[in-house]
């Protein structure tokens, strides 16, 4: 695989493969940044299948397209099934000598959290189990944003959305999000990781590792949503950083073949100083109703602590050596 080296933002800015200007993502939306990092990680030809959602609707309003690589949108819940068809066609046509390029094509499916945790979970599960050679990128904005900020099973506890609104009695969503990254690990996907656009070098390396790995791989990228989380539009990358620094969003990776097949975990970033979760919650109006409810904030803190501790133990038991 032809990987590219970018270690400074200047390197990244020079890289050409990105969404074209003129896409209609909201001011401050981080997914154009996510896509730039993704597509800059390699020189290999890419073919992308995109689920219905914000990314698809803002990047391809006919007669325009912002995509520099072959791209298909089929429906909401089937990006993984669609890419499995594309990848199977590639295998068959290659075997029959009908592929023009000598280069190895890489296949990527991209979906939002709704298209991944919820309605698309089955097709993703099937595609991973079948072992197709593809990378699934989940851009996780923690809700159905395209349809107006409804809850998904990625929406965090106590966040207010239009279908889990904070009211006089109920303080927003009442469930913890399910851990999709664990679910993918349970599928024994070959390489699984969590990433953040704030830590873009780490994210780019993860993309490279995933694309170098044969078989199904999965990266869950946090993607703050300005209208959905309701914060000033210049804060997206900063919020992603606060999510990581407060341990709300853990940067880690997993390889199923590590430790002789027992699997291996690695926490890629350990915040050096304590950052209170309140710093992450406060700029977001979806949490406005809990800022004066310390008992609810404590719930979140406890949850974060449990998640971190659990992962540290896993890492200790089953370390992933580079």
């Amino acid at each position, binding site marked *: 695989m032809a990987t590219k080296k970018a270690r400074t933002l200047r390197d990244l800015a020079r890289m050409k493969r990105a969404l074209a200007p003129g896409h209609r993502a909201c001011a401050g939306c981080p997914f154009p940044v996510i896509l730039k990092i993704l597509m800059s990680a390699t020189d290999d*030809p890419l*073919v992308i*299948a995109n689920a219905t959602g914000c990314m*698809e*609707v803002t990047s*391809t*309003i*006919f*007669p325009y*397209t912002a*995509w*520099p*690589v*072959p*791209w*298909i*949108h*089929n*429906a909401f*819940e*089937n990006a993984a*099934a*669609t*890419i*499995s*068809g*594309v*990848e*199977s*066609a*590639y*295998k*068959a*046509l290659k*075997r*029959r000598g*009908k*592929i*023009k*390029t000598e*280069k190895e*094509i890489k296949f990527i499916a991209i979906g939002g959290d709704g298209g991944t945790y919820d309605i698309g979970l*089955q*097709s993703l*599960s*099937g*595609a991973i*189990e*079948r072992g197709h050679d593809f990378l699934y990128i989940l851009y996780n904005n923690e809700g159905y944003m395209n349809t107006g900020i409804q809850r998904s099973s990625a929406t965090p506890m106590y966040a207010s959305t239009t279908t889990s609104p904070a009211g006089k009695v109920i303080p927003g969503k009442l469930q913890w999000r399910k851990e999709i990254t664990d679910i993918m690990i349970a599928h024994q996907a070959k390489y699984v990781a969590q990433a953040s656009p704030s830590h873009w070098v780490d994210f780019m390396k993860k993309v490279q590792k995933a694309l170098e790995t044969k078989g199904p791989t999965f990266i869950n990228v946090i993607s703050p949503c300005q209208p959905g989380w309701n914060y000033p539009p210049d804060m997206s990358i900063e919020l992603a950083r606060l999510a990581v620094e407060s341990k709300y969003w853990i940067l880690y990776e997993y390889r199923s073949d590590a430790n002789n097949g027992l699997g291996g975990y690695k926490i890629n970033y350990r915040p050096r100083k304590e950052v209170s979760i309140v710093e992450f919650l406060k700029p977001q109006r979806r949490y406005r109703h809990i800022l004066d409810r310390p008992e609810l904030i404590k719930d979140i803190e406890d949850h974060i602590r449990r998640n971190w501790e659990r992962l540290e133990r896993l890492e200790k038991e089953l370390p992933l050596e580079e």
Partner: protein
Amino acid sequence: MAKRKTTRVALTGNEAMALAMKQINPDVVAAYPITPATEIVQLFSKYVADGEVDTEFVPVESEHSAMSACVGAAAAGARVMTGTASQGLALMHEILYIASALRLPITMCVVNRALSAPINIHCDHSDTMGSRDAGWIQIYTENVQEAYASVIVAVKSAEKANLPALVTTDGFVLSHGMEAVEIFDDEDVREFLGERKPLYNLLDIDNPITIGPLDLQDYFFEHKRAQIEAVFESKKHIYDAHREFEEFFGVKLPVFVEPYRLDDAEYAIVVMGSSAGTGKDAVDVMRDERGIKVGLLRMRIFRPFPFEEIQKYLSKVKYLAVMDRADSLNTMGGPLATEIARALYHLSERPIIHNFVYGLGGRDVPLENFYEVIEKMQWIAAGNTPERMVDYVGVRE
């Protein structure tokens, strides 16, 4: 006489369809099992396991994913096939429309089975009738021989028209019924179909394309109109594919409709699928033993709707019994009757039409059903007016 070598073998409908798929050796097959179509998927997996085809077989986790993977594979330029029935086809529903609107010539073997509820595994046409507006070419076959040939000619038709096509057999009656079938050699089938040559494809990395973009008020209608026009034009492509099939193999297939003893008919029956065979026998009895001037028109292709052929064969009959193996639950009977009425309505000369719904959930369709239908038409001919637009035959009421 066949121009190409044929071999006579005993096959069920499922075996014949799976064999046609083997001979076609598609690039990709993505499928999921469901009675009574399961065998098609099973037999095909065995061909893959035995190396008799080098197709990429994708054993998906649902029919929704089967059709989704077919869309991805066809958009990547592959020749793609699948098979299903009933609930499986219903689960694909969302993606059927996407396959046709993206102009992807996927070919699907469907074994007709009643839609739940109540759950049932036997034949009626409610499943494919439920997909009638999905933009697929729909071919209904009368017997196993025709099912076999239709799968081959469907691939050709689909690829000429750049539209997906489905070929059906009646569940159990044909899917599990064994017949002597004349089959072609693998090489001839492959030579007849040649390679799929898509105009665009996702794997052409030097010419990146965006497939399936958001299309709003300012363009959607033009694109939908273009698709509609493609369906208008598909009729010619379907005729061409059948002509080429006949020229290549020396075997003639009916195309859109098959008239039976209609020349001087006063009464006519329209029917689709395997019941047409019984219907033709009933016509013989009614003509030869009872002196009734009755004929039959079998609809083989339901989409695109053969309104010109219907006008040609049916405008001169006086009393037309349309038999539907599905009900639209709209108090007017089945879709076939509604559409045939529309095809004939504006003609100055046209028959009186009455609709009969028959054979739901695999209810047996004996000769008596057809006698009953014609008796009712005679009753109408005698000046009586039916209470409803539709009667139900073969059911305890």
